[in-house]
């Protein structure tokens, strides 16, 4: 070894300190506004009005060099303004991503589409309104970065909007590319890139400062035509859109209107049809619109008759809409869907947040309470029971728009029957004779009792797997509304009891079975040792109660047989070459059962529910696979009998759902599933109203918190709130970017916050204690949003 620099025990981080990740998860609710103000301040911004600093979920990646600061921000809706710093210096560059913004300047408003670049002067009264979420890249360059060069007399009194193109385009792309690789750039690389960005910004600022602001155009014909085209664009959904109406609205004659079109070699009817087809084409090729059926899209652009639309579309583009959409999905797939990625295709889901409630999820009045409780606020706790049947489950998704199966009060108990979505792996043992299961799984050529399975489109026009596309797989019983629950409250769900659901098939009467699938989304799937590669394997287990004569025989599971998945044809005729859609009944003759598997092996039980969720606030239909702040597919076996989970309420009524019952699972859930076994749980539900949380362990809760008899278990995820963090891309992106390293970071931050805010420790005490006494473990590496949990023993505080 040469005697040169070494970097083993204390890698020289001095220079790398210019990189800083920020997440609101590190801070208590009270500290967030100040912390966020600091984040904005590093790039020369501030909340637009004093005292309104944002306090919701936010993440930011920041890196700086002398005089240069770049930050990529993902936060909620807010308005920001430049920090007044005198007239000198370069304007602040703001590049909105995902969504446009509104630029306010004095009294005027201007809509800035996504992809346009904003340059904000460091003085003056402009502000930027992020109406949905604040998702932007911000670059701040101060004279320090120019190394004594004179920036020239920049007269930059007004905010400017720069459309993509030319140098601005290069600059924007550079901002974007740099922001994406901020963490990976070496110090020298970063210094070079930062300087280049500063130079580009200087050049652009000069160009703009030299140019006068857009002059007022005269009211030329082109301008009128442009206005008319915009009017048409706004009314494309109107099947009766006529030239007369448009002309009248714009204050010109119909004849003049037609003349304007003739002037550019077109005519009104052709133009409108072309625009409609183009827009439909764009929607069909956009995975973000994948939740809409083809007829919905056709209707949206004024085609009331979908057969007519189909013909016209084919005439124009050479392919019927359905084939076109599938072709586009397949084209997108290889590049963007690494093997093992579940859920929505990459780049999918833009604007999911604005999409209309699905047809099956109509908001409806609350169903009547299951018990005849009176309306008084303080009624004695009552017991409720939700039996499982087709109308009482939602399959593969969570939704704030589902109508509740029951409304219960705080303190009430409720028994909830749940079914495993894997019962169809051996219908004889797990469905036959069980009227509840038969109702939910009921599926013939003519009728499918629960049609939507997953958050995908009902017409299966993305992959053709089936309604909902299996973007989410769990059969969830519920939702159950909690009386008076409001966003900001905390719902405590106590698991009082869990009992397995025995087979009702006379042949297996009273025995309990489960299934475990080593599936294509498993952690092992890309690296089989021996052929055939890859393969999916289903193992059917029997769940056995202990016997008294053998004191070792606590309740346990033993394998009965296994089989390799063979292409299954569902009752609608769709062939499932892989396990890509839940509840497809496996015909016994179609697979080869291998007995004597896992011979002599007995797995002690850990009965728990994989899924306990309240409805998320961000979007209407949320894939049930990735867990997040609202709970969901936590897949932590510690959620068993006697334990409690605290969930932050996001929508009125909370809308609690339970499913994905597991007889036993290991930390990691390596193959993709546990021993999936239908079970019935009894829960007590307690609502903690906002404002009553002070000093409680669930104070300031922004994630699912598990309490067992002995421990606090905090749930860390790769992306603690992936819906907010990735915005429109969330439901796809979360599958692509999961990592245990990120989940570990999140678990660390949550535990630090818990120790500081709930246990009153200083940061130094919290870190010492975490090192000496907190155990971090792998929850799962198969649910899109990977999990690491942190376990804090209650004994520490006795």
């Amino acid at each position, binding site marked *: *070894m*040469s005697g040169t*620099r*070494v*970097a*083993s*025990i*204390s890698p020289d981080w001095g220079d790398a300190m210019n990189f*800083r990740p920020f997440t609101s998860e*590190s*801070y208590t609710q009270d500290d967030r506004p100040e912390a966020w103000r600091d984040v904005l301040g590093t790039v020369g911004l501030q909340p637009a009005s004093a005292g309104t600093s944002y306090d919701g979920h936010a993440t930011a990646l920041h890196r700086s060099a002398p005089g240069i600061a770049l930050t990529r921000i993902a936060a909620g809706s807010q308005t920001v303004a430049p920090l007044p710093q005198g007239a000198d210096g370069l304007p602040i560059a703001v590049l909105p991503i995902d969504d446009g913004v509104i630029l306010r300047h004095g009294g005027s408003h201007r809509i800035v589409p996504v992809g346009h670049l904003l340059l904000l002067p460091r003085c003056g009264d402009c502000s930027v309104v992020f109406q949905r979420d604040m998702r932007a890249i911000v670059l701040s360059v101060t004279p320090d970065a120019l190394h004594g060069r004179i920036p020239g007399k920049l007269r930059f009194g007004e905010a400017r909007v720069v459309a993509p193109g030319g140098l601005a385009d290069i600059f924007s792309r550079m901002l974007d590319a740099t922001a994406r690789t901020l963490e990976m750039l070496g110090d020298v690389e970063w210094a070079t890139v930062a300087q280049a960005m500063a130079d580009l910004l200087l050049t652009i600022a000069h160009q703009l400062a030299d140019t006068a602001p857009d002059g007022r155009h005269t009211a030329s014909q082109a301008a009128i035509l442009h206005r008319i085209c915009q009017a048409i664009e706004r009314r494309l959904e109107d099947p009766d859109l006529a030239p007369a109406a448009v002309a009248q609205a714009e204050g010109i004659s119909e004849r003049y209107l037609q003349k304007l079109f003739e002037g550019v070699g077109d005519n009104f009817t052709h133009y409108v049809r072309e625009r409609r087809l183009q827009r439909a084409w764009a929607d069909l090729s956009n995975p973000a619109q994948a939740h809409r059926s083809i007829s919905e899209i056709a209707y949206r652009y004024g085609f009331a008759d979908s057969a007519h639309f189909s013909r016209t579309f084919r005439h124009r583009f050479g392919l019927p809409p359905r084939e076109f959409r599938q072709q586009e999905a397949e084209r997108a797939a290889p590049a963007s869907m690494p093997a093992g990625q579940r859920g929505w295709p990459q780049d999918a889901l833009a604007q999911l947040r604005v999409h209309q409630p699905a047809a099956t999820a109509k908001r409806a009045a609350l169903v009547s309470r299951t018990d005849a409780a009176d309306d008084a606020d303080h009624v004695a706790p009552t017991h409720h029971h939700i039996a499982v049947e087709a109308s009482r489950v939602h399959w593969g998704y969570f939704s704030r728009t589902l109508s509740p199966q029951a409304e219960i009060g705080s303190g009430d108990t409720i028994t909830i029957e749940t079914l495993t979505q894997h019962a169809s792996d051996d219908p004889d043992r797990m469905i036959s004779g069980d009227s509840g299961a038969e109702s939910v799984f009921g599926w013939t050529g003519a009728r499918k009792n629960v049609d939507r399975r997953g958050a995908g489109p009902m017409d299966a026009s993305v992959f053709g797997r089936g309604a909902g596309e299996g973007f989410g797989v769990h059969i969830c019983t519920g939702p159950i509304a909690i009386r008076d629950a409001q966003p900001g409250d905390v719902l405590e769900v106590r698991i009082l009891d869990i009992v397995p659901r025995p087979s009702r098939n006379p042949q297996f009467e009273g025995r309990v079975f489960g299934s*475990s699938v*080593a599936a294509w989304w498993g*952690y092992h799937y890309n690296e089989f*040792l021996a052929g055939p590669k890859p393969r999916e*394997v289903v*193992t059917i*287990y029997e769940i056995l109660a202990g016997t008294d004569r*053998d004191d*070792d*025989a606590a309740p346990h*599971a033993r*394998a009965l047989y*296994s089989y390799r998945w063979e292409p299954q044809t569902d009752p609608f005729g769709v062939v499932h070459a892989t396990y890509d859609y839940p509840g497809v009944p496996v015909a016994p003759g179609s697979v080869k059962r291998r007995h004597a598997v*896992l011979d*002599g092996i*007995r797995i*002690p039980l850990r009965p728990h529910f994989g899924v306990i969720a309240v409805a998320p606030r961000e979007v209407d239909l949320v894939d049930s696979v990735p867990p997040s702040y609202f709970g969901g597919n936590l897949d932590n076996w510690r959620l068993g009998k006697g334990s409690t989970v605290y969930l932050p309420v996001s929508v009125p009524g909370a809308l609690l759902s339970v499913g994905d019952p597991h007889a036993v699972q*290991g*930390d*990691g859930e*390596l*193959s*993709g599933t546990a021993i999936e076994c239908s079970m019935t749980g009894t829960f007590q539900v307690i609502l903690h109203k906002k404002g009553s949380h002070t000093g409680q362990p669930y104070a300031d809760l922004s994630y699912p918190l598990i309490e067992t008899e002995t421990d606090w278990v905090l749930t860390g995820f790769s992306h603690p709130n992936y819906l907010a963090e990735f915005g429109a891309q969330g439901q796809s992106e979360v599958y692509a970017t999961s*990592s*245990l*390293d990120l989940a*570990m970071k999140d678990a*660390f931050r949550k535990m*630090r916050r818990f120790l500081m805010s709930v246990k009153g420790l*200083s*940061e*130094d*005490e919290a*870190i*010492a*204690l*975490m*090192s*000496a*006494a*907190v*155990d*971090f*473990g*792998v929850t799962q*590496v198969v649910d899109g949003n990977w999990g*690491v949990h942190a376990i804090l023993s209650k004994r520490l*505080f*006795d």
Partner: protein
Amino acid sequence: MKHFNLPVSPATVHWGYFSKKVQPAVTLRSGDRATIETLTHHANDDYERMIANDPGAESVFHWTREHKAVARRGSGPTEGPFIRGSGEGIGVHLLTGPVAIENAEPGDVLEVRILDIRPRPSCSACHAGRCFGSNAAANWGFHYHDLIEEPKPREVITIFELDTSGEPFARAVYNYVWTPQTDPDGIVHATIDYPGVRVDHGTIKKRENILTGVKVPARLHFGTMGLAPSEADFVSSIPPSYTGGNIDDWRIGKGARMYYPVAVPGAFFSVGDPHAAQGDSELGGTAIETSLTGDFEFILHKKNDLGGTSLEGLTHPMLETEQAWSVYGFTYPNYLAELGANAQTEIASHSSLDRAMRDAFRKLRRFLMTVHRLSEDEAISLMSVGADFGVTQVVDANWGVHGTIRKNVFRCD
């Protein structure tokens, strides 16, 4: 069966590295036992409590301008001028040994049973008989670049006392923020970058009444135990690897049996880095570092006898406790071989749990298939429903994930 005693002294320790070149401190045979003293390399964080009047500790930590009892600390250069000191602190753990095993050859497996572990009481007049440890939230900690309170960044030492009167537990005594410390050779250590530098308590500000009412349950164990690797003569003690080393799993305590593949003739076992308690992940960079003494038994399993036993095909460290088997996955299972000449410094910039998880999965699959004769499909199903994966540590450059399978899974009527 013979019983040996291995007290600590400059002659029986090597500091900060594993090496096949170090003269063995003792040579014994398979089946023999040894009582081995170990010292924490953090004892100088509070000299008074952890070194003063302890002849063994004083002899090892002795360092004046004229004489440094153990000069080399780390696998780095031993010729000056130094940035930090001889060995450059590339490797930090005070290791007792090596213990050579007669007849051990590459390809064999050495089983090390921990029969007992006892804390090493203070000898200082004021604290005699009481046991202390130090926890450093250090610059290599997982938290270091993600601090929320000022000043940023900072290193913090917390001194703990271990109470063994009943069910043993540790409680914090005081803490302080690290200040630049000047060693006897005049090198200033602005951060914790070289082991065994005595902290001048005149330069620090003690904060008492910390972690009040908090009792950390004791988990006495050795953070670093392992054999000399064959790849290099001097190997940093920080990254764990295929011959063990700084695994930092608190389950390696009393009653545990560790198995290590032998890489060099004589095996060359060393032990150190004693811990009073540690959580899975060792988040801040260290455990409660406390000098301990252990009773060990050594059993050599010859290469040709491994077939058909739990050790068949073992190429990595493995733990057996009363309840379970654990295999250790690392970012790089053998970083010395994988990362080439600069492996010992390179490894720090590749740390990742994702790779460690991948490694743990592969090792456990191999164990189930080789030892328990399961098919690959059976092994994968069993791992999903019956094995637990946990974070061993995220602070030792070569990060660790352990995969554990309970023994009662296999006990069937």
